[in-house]
């Protein structure tokens, strides 16, 4: 079930919102229409928290997290950190990371098991990520781009990458992440797929410019439609062994 939304006339939803399986962070100041659509989809299952990070509204690009934790840049104010600790469920660990590359959302892409990071990330940050988020960390580039968090987005079900990723790279990522990956676009041909959408295991929000083809690709690879196991899902035929894993797990 992928929906199309606009945040204040911008189609880059992933810039402003951070969506995980346990919570959703959105900035303040948007129209009530946006919030109502979001809450309509996520009601009950996921806490929707209105916040700012480092005084800005680009929440999606500055912080990164999964169901276990949330990482914030060092520029985040104490008040924000406190607010987040108060609002989020207790299982979610909120941690501030002292990292030169402060746009964590652009540098790190993660799901509940694996994280892909910018090749130049500090060693300590890597350790923090693996501690707090409980994931395996891999340094990667996507189609020659070092900003993996912008050009690649993946959940526990599937992933979408930059359209110019080569076939070998796609294979390698699939194997690494153990999920089907596909190269595609959102927002009518935009390559910055992560900034154009916010996605978790059962729902996705794309920008309004996203065409029907792109929505179908998204729904397919992230398995957002009512999935009959293995049927019609993109990537279901990529590697037989992997599909077998899926069924048996």
């Amino acid at each position: 079930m992928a929906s199309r939304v606009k945040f204040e006339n911008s189609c880059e939803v992933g810039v402003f919102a951070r969506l995980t399986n346990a919570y959703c962070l959105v900035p303040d100041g948007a129209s009530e229409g946006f919030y109502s659509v979001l809450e309509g989809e996520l009601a009950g299952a996921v806490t929707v928290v209105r916040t700012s990070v480092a005084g800005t509204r680009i929440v999606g690009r500055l912080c990164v997290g999964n169901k276990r934790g949330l990482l914030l840049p060092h520029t985040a104010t104490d008040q924000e950190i406190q607010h987040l600790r108060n609002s989020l469920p207790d299982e979610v660990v909120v941690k501030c990371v002292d990292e030169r590359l402060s746009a964590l959302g652009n540098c790190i892409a993660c799901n509940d098991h694996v994280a892909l990071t910018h090749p130049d990330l500090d060693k300590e940050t890597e350790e923090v990520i693996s501690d707090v988020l409980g994931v395996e960390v891999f340094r990667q580039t996507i189609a020659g781009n070092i900003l993996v968090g912008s050009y690649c987005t993946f959940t526990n079900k599937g992933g979408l990458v930059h359209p110019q990723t080569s076939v070998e790279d796609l294979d390698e990522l699939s194997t690494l992440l153990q999920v089907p990956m596909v190269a595609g676009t959102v927002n009518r041909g935009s390559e910055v797929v992560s900034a154009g959408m916010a996605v978790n295991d059962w729902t996705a929000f794309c920008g309004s410019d996203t065409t029907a083809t792109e929505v179908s690709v998204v729904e397919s690879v992230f398995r957002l439609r009512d999935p009959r196991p293995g049927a019609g899902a993109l990537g279901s035929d990529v590697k037989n062994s992997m599909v077998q894993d899926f069924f048996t797990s």
Partner: protein
Amino acid sequence: MLPGSAPAAGGTGMFVPAATAGTVLCCMCGVSMQPNPANMCARCLRARVDITEGVPRHAAVVYCPDCSSYLQPPRSWLRATPESPELMQILLRRINRPLARLRVSLSGAEFVFSEPHSKRLRLKLRLRREVLHGIVLEQTHPVEFVVHDRLCDSCSRAQANPDQWVAVVQLRQHVPHRRTFLYLEQLLLKHGQASLAIRVAAAPGGLDFFFGSRSHAARLVDFLATVAPIQTSTAKQLVSHDTKSSVYNYKYTFSVEICPICREDLIALGPQASRDMGGLGPLVLCVKVTNAIALLDPLTLRVHHLEEKKYRVYNFKAALTSKQLVEYIVLDIEQESPEISIDGSRYQLAYAQVARVSDFGKNDTIFTVRTHLGHLLNPGDHALGYDLYGANLNDDDMDKAMTRYSLPEVVLVKKSYEKRPRTRRWKLKRLLVEEDAANKAKGEEEKRLDEYEAFLRDLELDPEMRFKMDLYKNEDYRSEMASTVGDDIPTVPIEELIEDLTLGDDEEDEGEEAV
């Protein structure tokens, strides 16, 4: 390369992983394609983006039907034939500005056929423009030009008054014959000096050349000054006057008078003239007229060149002209001195015994004369000369000379040839001259034809004169069966002839002129 197969090794031995581009779905239509900066398939791109938006589809161009030229604003007119590269250039310049403004570049253009009388010119342009994240799209775009007819400035001026002339050159020579004008006509044809003339008219005593501008007339006058001894005077007449901008329109007249001495004229020099020329005998023959007159003393074989200005000091006239040549038969000849060459012409002093053809056989009148034609004449030849023995002259100088010196009775001028071939292998082009119908006298036509025939005969004799003009091959020439017409009759060698240009004769090569 299949995914999973061994990657290619780089030339240096470095490991270079293979990178095959994957396929993505076009974001609009979902067809599988190679990723591009817009991530849309070519058809969706073309459908979505029209790079020819804003490029003009119609334009106008102005054409002059008289001289088939197109206007290049603001004022220049360029000749161009239909569907030619020049026309393409003119049309592309008309739409260049809007193209540049829209940042569209032209990668090709071609003509699309349109009926010539439809007043439309169609071009198909290939336009190239960068859209959306750096993709360059190419698209064809038809442009239609509407052709508007308008006379260009020069044509409208010519149309308004076709006979309007601004300058006239009145060429005159006060002699009874027209030989000089025939010669000048051929010279003008060869050098193309009369091509700018609007009209050429015949006038009593000469020719009138009408021009559209003063500079063209001056050009003709300058040319004439180099080929003939002339005296010019100019005059102008006010036609109109624009008071506001002080522009005056005039009609200019150049009166050009050619010196009345021609070739083969016999002149008796007055005592002063004779003295000034270094004692040149009182009787002189004019042998060559260029921009100076060459006077030959037949008895001493001395040639003196007299310039026009110096001539005007004396202003002597010819005592006897070539009309009064009489035919003689040479009875005996005795060379006196070796053959010499002056100015490219050869002379040889000789004593000759001649008798007039009219006397020959009837009486015994024989003249013994000194002549300069010793190298040409043999006993039995015919020659033309001036008969001073029986002449009745009206010339003061001649009377004076007769009293002072003892003058020869005959002055031989040139050799004459008996038989002449009927047709000539060569022909000449003529200038288009408007005849003055009102001033025609009876018998003028015949006189003209005779003069022309004499002129052609002269041409055959004189290779130097031939050098100055163009002779064309006569296709109607059939060489006579009796080609033994006489070995010594001079004819024009075929190497000097030019092939005449005929329309429709593609295999014919152009000029084989060789002199």
